[in-house]
């Protein structure tokens, strides 16, 4: 009986069900538009797993998502919902792009400089919101969302600047200098069969471990979670809650900004004019939720989302709408939300049964 209970109290169990049901819901949608789910899901699997280089590509897709996922998960721990990861991601890529295009120094300096600029930009972007929250009591969700749009238009503005955009092309910036790219050495990329294989994924894993360490092992993590669980008690016991709020939101913003840098330096190499929000930050919310706000969990949920995105991008080859991926991910999130309620209900029932 206790085995049953331990399964029912495990997040992974509900996650698995949510994922299965999410795919089932996707299958119904596919049938509705006249596509065989077996063909579509077959293509999805094939596009991710049939060749090693596809897996590498999936990891590339996962990298920024892991980082924004970490950003959101970290903010959850402190009881703040960083829905502004999107904007922090954008200013992060802007900073990395500007430093990458305009500063000409050797690679040993250039990459750290770009990354540092991105982290600072993301952190600063989030800190403005945190400051408004602390000093003026402005709800952070509102300002985060507004700052997403400010970042969005600021980025388009930057693309339009003469020093930044390509000659005779105002739709995208110049590529960042080679010294700022974070690609693996050429021969490694050849072996992997992926022209964009880069250090970003490794960086994301390291960050996840660092964040896990901060939360679990350090006094900073202890105070952040204390504030997240019960800000009144934290304050009463002498924890400087404002300082902790600023620190945590700053770190969260920095992580999202780093995500922007990694995407830019590892994948795109330049900024293009946005037509709509790219959604890396919002997808980070999904990653954090699937990963149960656990930093290590974010690695796996980020990989899952990354693979779905990469595999999904191939679906158009067989005339399957790629939006199906977003529908499935949305369903999974919805179901995870439902599962929190079901979990307590199931557990109660099992306990009741055992008692009888």
């Amino acid at each position, binding site marked *: 009986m206790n085995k049953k209970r331990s399964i029912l109290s495990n997040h992974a169990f509900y996650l698995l069900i949510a994922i299965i049901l999410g795919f089932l819901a996707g299958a119904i949608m596919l049938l509705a538009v006249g596509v065989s789910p077996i063909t579509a899901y077959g293509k999805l699997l094939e596009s991710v797993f049939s060749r090693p280089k596809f897996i590498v590509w999936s990891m590339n897709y996962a990298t920024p998502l892991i980082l924004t996922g970490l950003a959101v998960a970290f903010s959850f721990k402190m009881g703040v919902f960083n829905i502004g990861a999107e904007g922090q991601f954008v200013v992060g890529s802007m900073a990395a792009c500007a430093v990458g295009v305009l500063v000409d120094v050797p690679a040993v300096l250039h990459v750290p400089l770009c990354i540092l600029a991105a982290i600072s930009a993301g952190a600063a972007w989030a800190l403005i919101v945190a400051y408004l929250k602390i000093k003026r009591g402005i709800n952070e969700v509102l300002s985060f969302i507004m700052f997403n749009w400010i970042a969005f238009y600021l980025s388009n503005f930057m693309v339009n600047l003469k020093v930044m955009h390509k000659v005779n092309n105002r739709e995208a910036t110049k590529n960042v200098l080679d010294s700022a790219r974070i690609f693996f050495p050429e021969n490694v990329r050849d072996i992997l069969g992926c022209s964009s294989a880069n250090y970003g994924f490794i960086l994301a894993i390291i960050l996840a471990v660092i964040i896990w360490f901060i939360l679990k*092992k*350090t*006094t*900073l993590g*202890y*105070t952040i*979670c*204390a504030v997240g*669980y*019960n800000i*009144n*008690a*934290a*304050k*009463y*016991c*002498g*924890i*400087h809650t404002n300082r902790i709020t600023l620190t945590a939101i700053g770190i969260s913003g920095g992580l999202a900004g780093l995500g922007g840098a990694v995407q830019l330096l590892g994948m795109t190499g330049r900024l293009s004019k946005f037509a709509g929000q790219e959604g890396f930050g919002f997808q980070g919310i999904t990653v954090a939720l699937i990963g149960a706000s656990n930093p290590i969990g974010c690695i796996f949920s980020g990989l899952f989302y990354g693979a779905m995105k990469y595999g999904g991008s191939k679906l158009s080859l067989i005339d399957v709408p790629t939006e199906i991926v977003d529908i499935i991910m949305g369903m999974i999130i919805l179901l995870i939300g439902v599962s929190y309620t079901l979990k307590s209900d199931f557990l109660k029932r099992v*306990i009741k049964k*055992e*008692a*009888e």
Partner: protein
Amino acid sequence: MEKAYQVDKNKVVISMKGIVKKFDNLLVNDHIDLTVHKGEIHAILGENGAGKSTLMNILYGLAKPNSGEIIVKGKAVPIESPKHAIELGIGMVHQHFMLVQPFTVTENIILGMETLNGIVLDIKSAKKKVLEISQKYGLKVDPDAKIEDISVGMQQRVEILKVLYRGADILILDEPTASLTIAEINELIEIMNHLAADGKSIILITHKLKEIKASADYCTIIRQGKYIKTVKVDEVEENHLASMMVGRELVYEVDKKPMLPGKTVIDIKNLHAKDYRGVEILKGLNLMVRQGEIVGLIGVDGNGQTELIEILTGLLRGESGDVIMNGESIFNAEPKQVFDKGVSSIPADRQKHGLILEYSVADNLILQNYNQKPFSQKGILQRNEIEKYAEELIEKFDIRPKDSVNKPVGQLSGGNQQKVIIAREVTNDKDLLIAVNPTRGLDVGAIAFVHKYIVEQRNKKKAVLLVSFELDEIMSLSDRIEVIFDGQITGSVSGDDADENTLGLLMAGGKLNE
């Protein structure tokens, strides 16, 4: 010797026989019997976790017994749900009120059984009915007031009205006095007598002996899930009730040797402050506490004691005045500075301010010292040291269960949660201990425990400021009692000379020697 409990078959309204309830393998109710007559106030006495709430949840249809029989007004019925219980005429007033804050009193009372006039809510006739019931039993309420604007005492009367409005003639009151002031408690007892005189039966769950003595006809004692005895209340002594409840003789006397107060530890001078609405609530308050004395601060709720404590602990900013701690001002300092200057405190609301319920017992014990050696080094928590420290305190302060080092503190009983706070604050061993309602909601055993440690701090020549609504607690512990009224100290009485009447007079704003 008290006489055996007499059952009068004609008047029995509720009879629970051999009720057994198990959670997991834990026997919470082990063959409990309960008989309640018409027009009787029947107290159920037991320590925290004795199983009295479970028994009442069974009676109210919130839980199902594993075995046993419930007979309501002569008919054996399995009670399926609270709805079913209400149909049977059983109503329950929970310890934590279940009211909709922005709704009016009337709206709350009729919630779920609104009378309609066509399709429109018929508030008028509902209000009339509410007023009728309230006048009949002396339940004074303002039917148009919003819940968020009325006192806790009135909120409770609304809860009782809610039950009566649904036609209940058997009322279960779960710890009804837990958050009431002395005057409100007296009023409640009067209301209960009214109701009983009108033929309603009241089941009173409590662990306050004094209230049982003052109101109940019979008392059923439950200990560790087992039925102990049912007694006629006016035939037993208070301390006999207490020892039946805990299963051993209780030593009430605290070890308080006579002591001369030493130098002043905290000196509060001419303190002015506003409450959250911006209304002046402290109006030039002066108070000082010296080494080796317990100063009891008492007053009717809302006279500024909450704000005073918030200022002393750094949660609220005062307007003017000064607070001198060991010669240095801590007026409007941050909580951390206040703590560092030698103030530790047992907060009034342990779940809001005292503990982080999701954190383990160990993590809660280091809430103020987490960044000091040996608990952390260079910002890294030292788990082994923290757990070792926690194990010591769990042993020393008898926190149960014993293996709760890494258990979330929210899983502990209220009494043990309070022990965690006491353990932490007493071990901090600061010059001043502020204790605010330190025994609220605790049973007799835990109360004695808390009192012991408060007195021990005093005996160690520390200063103690005790703020409490419990007159008994203030009178039995304090060396000096200060009465707060309308934002000022209006009277000071030596602990030995204090009597209830004088204090009551002072608390109501009267003056001595007039």
